């Protein structure tokens, strides 16, 4: 049985755990304010809030309910637009009215929900972050400017938010209805774990639910998302350990990782959208085995390993670069799940960089993406280098030969140009909707150059590379 709180009501249901939260909210709970636009996470009309308890403190985030299986909200507080209504309008809703941020109105509940998520989460509100919180929502009427003005109005009202008593402050200032204050206590009464004996492992569901909604509803699924033992990111002295149900948002907002990797936040902005990062897992991205998975390419560039478990016990550790055998084919038995991802914490002098080019700047699948980690010692000798690239072969690629060629040599424009030949021999792009094979080879070269030029702007000048 799945148990959660929907707005101010406790739900206990025996419905299929693989049913989408969207269908439950609209057609079982008959809350029709949450809309259907695409059923694949692109439009944001179905955005809801998910609140989860974390040591007595409740954290809310936006999520696309079309890609969320019911089982994944077990023990959570789910908030639809109806659950955000106060007497009259709340501050966010009023801001949309005052700035004419709604026209046909169909996308509006999604936008309002995303901006409410921001109001709940933000520490020191600013307009660009507030606008950014709606990066998973599409509007076809307004041209967005009026919505941006709504975000500015909301930001203004958020100044002075009390971080220590945020629910109380938000209630008193009419951002959310007062029942929110009772939710943490109610959530703590719900059974923590979902009894779950299904067969096929599923994490956030953000990829599988795009095209397989009908099959998944009837499949025997092993839901990993709410398993306590798979929560969180840990650090040993030398290693970062990412447990399997860690979401992309948790990965990119981890304060330790942010301090280790300069520009970590701008990398995040290139990966999907806020509501999808909030539910999509890092391990799911690896298991999905897409040749252009952004997180996969990042972790290959960090030379990560994965721990494969059977029946909750760690069974073996595999280098991520050895996990992919062919298109969507993994060096992994059906019974094995990815339970952890590990990578060595970079040395102080290591540099890391990620590049991605797609048809749109945000919320798009890469044509080519690539990551590079490098360490130089005296006289610019390369003592460690890892390079990954996606979109140029049937699997996300670790460029083994290119890295072997570079290692031990002195970094220079001439060396980079020479190594591009090896890179080009390692990759095998095909022409498809994301570009011709030639275009992807060109992108591969340019992005590879960009790594070095960005990391060593004084030493590696673009004019010396071209």
């Amino acid at each position: 049985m799945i148990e959660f709180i929907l707005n101010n009501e406790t739900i206990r249901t025996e419905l299929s755990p693989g049913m989408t939260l969207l269908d439950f909210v609209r057609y079982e709970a008959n809350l029709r304010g949450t809309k259907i636009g695409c059923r694949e996470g692109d439009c944001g009309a179905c955005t809801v809030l998910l609140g989860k308890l974390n040591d007595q403190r409740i954290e809310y985030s936006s999520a696309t309910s079309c890609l969320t299986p019911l089982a994944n909200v077990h023990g959570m507080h789910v908030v639809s637009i109806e659950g955000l209504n106060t007497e009259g309008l709340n501050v966010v809703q009023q801001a949309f009215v005052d700035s004419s941020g709604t026209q046909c109105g169909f996308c509006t509940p999604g936008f309002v929900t995303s901006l409410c998520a921001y109001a709940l989460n933000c520490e020191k509100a600013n307009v660009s972050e507030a606008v950014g919180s709606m990066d998973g929502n599409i509007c076809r009427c307004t041209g967005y400017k009026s919505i941006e003005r709504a975000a500015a109005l909301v930001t203004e009202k958020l100044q002075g938010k009390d971080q220590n008593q945020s629910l109380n402050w938000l209630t008193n200032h009419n951002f959310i209805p007062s029942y929110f204050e009772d939710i943490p206590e109610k959530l703590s009464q719900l059974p923590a774990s979902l009894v779950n004996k299904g067969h096929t492992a599923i994490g956030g569901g953000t990829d599988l639910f795009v095209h397989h909604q009908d099959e998944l509803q009837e499949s025997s699924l092993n839901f990993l998302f709410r398993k306590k033992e798979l929560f969180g990111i840990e650090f040993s002295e030398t290693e970062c350990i990412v447990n399997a149900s860690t979401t992309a948002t948790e990965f990119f907002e981890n304060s330790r990782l942010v301090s280790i990797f300069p520009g970590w936040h701008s990398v995040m902005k290139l990966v999907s959208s806020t509501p999808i990062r909030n539910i999509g897992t890092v391990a799911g991205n690896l298991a999905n085995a897409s040749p252009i998975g952004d997180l996969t390419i990042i972790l290959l560039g960090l030379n990560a390993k994965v721990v494969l478990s059977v029946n909750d016990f760690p069974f073996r550790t595999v280098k991520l670069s050895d996990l992919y055998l062919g298109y969507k084919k993994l060096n992994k038995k059906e019974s094995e799940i990815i339970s952890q991802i590990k990578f060595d914490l970079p040395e102080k002098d290591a540099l890391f960089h990620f590049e991605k080019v797609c048809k749109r700047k945000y919320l798009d699948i890469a044509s080519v993406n690539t990551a590079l980690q490098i360490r130089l010692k005296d006289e610019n000798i390369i003592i460690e280098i890892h390079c990954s690239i996606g979109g140029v072969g049937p699997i996300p690629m670790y460029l083994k030969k290119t890295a072997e060629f570079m290692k031990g040599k002195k970094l220079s424009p001439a060396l980079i140009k020479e190594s591009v030949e090896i890179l080009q021999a390692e990759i095998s792009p095909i022409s498809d909707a994301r570009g011709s094979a030639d275009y992807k080879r060109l992108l591969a070269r340019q992005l590879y150059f960009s790594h070095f030029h960005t990391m060593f702007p004084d030493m590696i000048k673009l004019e010396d590379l071209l």
Partner: protein
Amino acid sequence: MINIDAHNHVSGKSIYLDDIIEWKGTLYALPFDVPVAHAKLGQIHMSGALSMAGVIAIFTAKDIPGKNQIGGIIADEPLFAEGEIHFWGQPIGIIVATSERICRLAREQIKIDFTALPVITDPREAQAKNMLICPPRNFQMGDVNSAWDDCEFVFEGEVNINGQEHLYIETQGAYARMKEDGSILIASSTQGPTAVQRTISNVLDIPMHKIEVDTVRLGGGFGGKEDQATGWAVMVALAAQKLQKPVKMVLHRMDDMRMTGKRHPYSADFKIGLSSDLKIIAYEATFYQNAGAAADLSPAVLERTLFHATNAYFVQNVHVTAFSCKTNLPPNTAFRGFGGPQGKFVIEAAITKVAESLGIPASDIQKRNLLQDGDEFSYGQIVDQCEAQNAWNSCE
């Protein structure tokens, strides 16, 4: 001015088509098609789908009591394909079942025989084969042929403009139920309730007064639900009439994008002539409108292209011609601007070509040729209360 619906919109209380709480016994409908753009239609194998639990009926062209015809301007578009398929996504029929999911599963069980025929997607190819939706139109003023000699500069070129998907966030949908004495109440996400009413009357062979169309609001339309909302409404009305049950259909985004028409792609040739002081003396253009497989609103869109062919400029010698070309794409339709943007784009492309060739800013040519009171358009209208120059000045 505040949108009168704004309070309900922001609190999720506005009721769109799929937000109507279902009447008891509601059935769901789903269109089916075949993955081919042009073909002779063979047998439709429905027994596998019909034997599935929850599948109530499948309706095709032979089940239509009235006329199998939904064309708005020209009667050239069947509700369900009969004999031939003319575009990929053309509905062949609908499945009616107790849930949307069963409809989708049943659709996979339908097998359709067909013999593929040659496909045309290029409007120039269609024009060359005289495959036109309607006779070509042309607007003329002055005499371009004798004007070229007076021009200091003459440039020619070709322009191609792609289509555009409306992507209204609420997909197409309709919901019908029978009332007393054979009347039908139909909720439809349409920009044209009268077209829905009239077309249901023709297809179901019942008088218009027995059809009540309820359209409270739309989750976006942008022209995409002007003519193209009709077919889906007729389908559920047909099923409701046949089965005497409420029937609802809301398209999945993928079906919507595949089956509905978009902004018209155009290909065009232009010739433009200017005096030494950049006055446009003559402009000639031929537009090849990619109409898709049926007329829809294409003839009206075509006219609007000609109305806007010289944009905000006065040109004394004009000859513009437009062909509405029949191809094997979904019938293209109204979209914000309704053919105007394509007409304007071509003359702007011509001006840009002149500017680039002469090494001057395009704005020099634009500003020099802005309309003024008393100027005449190629279709005979005299310009009055013109603000083009004022608007330009205030932008500068």
